[in-house]
C-alpha cells in the first residue's frame, strides 16, 4: 500500500461524535413518531371529557332544538343511516362492476388504462368539488332538491375510487389457478367470475367497501354545499326527504358555539357518537380481513 489517505486515529476520534449524532437523531425520529400519536390522544381525551356527560338516552332520541338542554341528534343519526342506505348499494354495484371490468374483462390497452388513470385522478379531487357536482347535477339539474338521495349519490361518487381500487386488489389476489380449474371444467367466463372469483375476493371487497363507507359517513364538506338545513325538526323517512347528518350537526354546533357556548359540548357529544360508529365499522372491517381472508 503506497500512500495512506485514511488516518485511523482521526477516523476513530470522529467516530465517537458520529455515533452520538446517530443516537441523538434516533431519539428525535422516535419523538416525531410519537408526536402524531400524542395529538391523537389529546384530541380523544379532550373530546370525550367534554362531551361524554351530554350523552344520554334523551340526547340520542330527541329532535333538534335551539335549546341546548333539550337538543337531540336522532334526526342526524337517521340522516346518516339513510345516507348509508344510498351509498352502500350504489358503491358496491358500480365499484365492484368497474373493478370486474378492469381486472377480468377489459383488454389491456388504451381504454383500460384511460379508465384506470381517470379513477386514480378522481381519488385526488377535493371532496368539496364533489359537493359542487352534487349541487349542480343532483340537487338542481335533476331536481332532487337537497334530499338524502342527492347527498347519498354525491358521497357515493366521492368514495367510489376507494371501493374500485380495493375491489381490484381483492380480485387480483385471487390466484389464477382457481379460475383455470373452473374454465377447465367448461365453465363460462361469467360462471367463473360469479361462482369462483367473486366469492374468493369477497372479504377483500367488503373490507374496502366498509372503509369507504366510514369515509363517506365522516365527510362533511360536500354536504355543506348541498344546502342542508341547520335546524330540521322532522325525521327523514325515505330517500326523498330532506335531512341532516351527524357531521353536519357537528359543523353547525361548532360554528354556533360562539353564540351559545354549550353548543360546543353538544358538538363534542355528537363527535363521540360519530367516532363510536366509525370505530365499530372499522372493527368489522378488520374482523372480516382477519377472519375470512383466505390465504393461498
Amino acid at each position, binding site marked *: 500500500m503506497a500512500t495512506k489517505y485514511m488516518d485511523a486515529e482521526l477516523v476513530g476520534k470522529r467516530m465517537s461524535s458520529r455515533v452520538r449524532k446517530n443516537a441523538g437523531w434516533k431519539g428525535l425520529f422516535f419523538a416525531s413518531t410519537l408526536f402524531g400519536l400524542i395529538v391523537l390522544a389529546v384530541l380523544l381525551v379532550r373530546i370525550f371529557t367534554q362531551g361524554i356527560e351530554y350523552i344520554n338516552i334523551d340526547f340520542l332520541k330527541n329532535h333538534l332544538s335551539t335549546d341546548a338542554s333539550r337538543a337531540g341528534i336522532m334526526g342526524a343519526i337517521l340522516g346518516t343511516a339513510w345516507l348509508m342506505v344510498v351509498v352502500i348499494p350504489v358503491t358496491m354495484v358500480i365499484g365492484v362492476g368497474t373493478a370486474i371490468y378492469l381486472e377480468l374483462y377489459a383488454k389491456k390497452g388504451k381504454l383500460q388504462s384511460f379508465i384506470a388513470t381517470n379513477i386514480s385522478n378522481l381519488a385526488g379531487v377535493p371532496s*368539496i368539488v364533489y359537493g359542487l357536482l352534487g349541487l349542480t347535477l343532483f340537487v338542481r339539474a335533476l331536481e332532487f332538491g337537497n334530499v338524502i338521495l342527492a347527498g347519498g349519490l354525491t358521497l357515493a361518487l366521492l368514495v*367510489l375510487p376507494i371501493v374500485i381500487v380495493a375491489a381490484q386488489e381483492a380480485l387480483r389476489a385471487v390466484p389464477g389457478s382457481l379460475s383455470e380449474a373452473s374454465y377447465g371444467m367448461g365453465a363460462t367466463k361469467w360462471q367463473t367470475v360469479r361462482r369462483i372469483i367473486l366469492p374468493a375476493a369477497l372479504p377483500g371487497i367488503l373490507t374496502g367497501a366498509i372503509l369507504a363507507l366510514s369515509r363517506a359517513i365522516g*365527510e362533511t364538506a360536500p354536504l355543506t354545499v348541498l344546502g342542508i338545513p341547520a335546524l330540521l325538526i322532522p325525521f327523514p323517512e325515505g330517500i326523498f326527504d330532506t335531512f341532516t347528518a351527524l357531521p353536519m350537526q357537528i*359543523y353547525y354546533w361548532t360554528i354556533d358555539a360562539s353564540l351559545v357556548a354549550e353548543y360546543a359540548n353538544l*358538538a363534542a357529544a355528537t363527535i363521540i357518537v360519530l367516532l363510536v360508529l366509525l370505530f365499530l365499522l372499522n372493527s368489522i372491517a378488520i374482523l372480516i380481513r382477519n377472519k375470512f381472508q383466505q390465504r393461498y
Partner: protein
Amino acid sequence: MAADNKNRTSVSEMIEQQKRKRKFFNQLERMIPGLLLIIASISVLTTIGIIYTLFAESVAFFRNVPILDFFTGTVLKPLSQNPEFGVLPLLNGTIISTVIAMLVAGPIGMMSAIYLSEYAPDNVRRVIKPLLEILAGVPTIVYGFFAFTFVTPLLRMIFPSIEATNILSPGIIMGVMIIPMIASLSEDAMSSVPNSMREGALALGSTKLETTFKVVIPAALSGIIASFVLGISRAIGETMIVAIASGSSKNFSFDITGSMQTMTAYIVEVAGGEAAAGTTIYYSLYAVALTLFVFTLIMNLLAKYISRKFREEY
C-alpha cells in the same frame, strides 16, 4: 339401481340437455362485458361531469367578471354594493395554510417514516403503524372542532393577540392530519430500497444515520417527493378544518394569527349562504372551485410524474 337403468341418463347427456337450456343465458352472458363497460364508464362520466360543471358555470362567471380581474384582484367583496371578485386573498389563504401544514407534516411525517423504516424494531412498528392509520381516519370535521375549540385557545398562551378564528391553528392541525399520509408513503418508498444497499453502506462503517441520509433517502427520493406533493394537494383541498377554524376574513393579509379564508372555505361559506342561482356570487363558487380543481390536479399529476419518471431501478 338396475331397474333404473333404462331411465338413467349419463352425465354427458345431462350436460347436453343443460346446454340447450342455457342458450338463452348464453345470449344474456354475451351482454355482460358491455354492461360492465357501461358501469365502468360511470367513473369517466363523473370526471366529465366535474369538468363540465366547473367550466360551464365558470364561463358564466367570467362573462360578468373579467378573467384578469379575477386572477390578479386582491380585493374580494362578493356581498358589497359594488362587488369585487379578486381571487388572490383566497389563494393567499390557501397557500399560507398549506405552507403551515407542510411545515408541520413535512418534517414530522418524514422523521416518522425514517423511524418506522430504518430504526423501529418489528414489534414497535406493528403497534405504531395502525395507530397512525387511525390518525388518518379521523374525520376532518373532528379536526376542525379540535383546532377551533382547543388549539386556538392553546395558542393564545403563546400569541395573546391571536384571533378566535385564525389561519395558524387550522394550518397546524391540517399538518397533523397529513402526517400519516407522508409517513406511510415515504416509508413505503424507503422500505422498497433493497437491503443490500443498506448493507453496503453499513459494511463501510457508516452509522445508521449516514446510511439513511446518504444512501436510503437519495435512493427513495422520488417516492418521498411524491408523498410531499400529495400532502400539498391534500392540504390545498382540505375544507372543514379551515372552514371552521380560520374564519371568513377576505383581507389580503399575511398575519397568521388573524383570520383568512381559503378557496375551500369560501365555497362552503357562499354555498351555505343563500346565494341564488344565476347571480354572480353563485357563479363565483365555480370559478373558485375550478381554480382549486386545477391546482390539485396539477399536484396529483406532478406526484404521479415524479414517482414514475424517477423511479429507481435497483
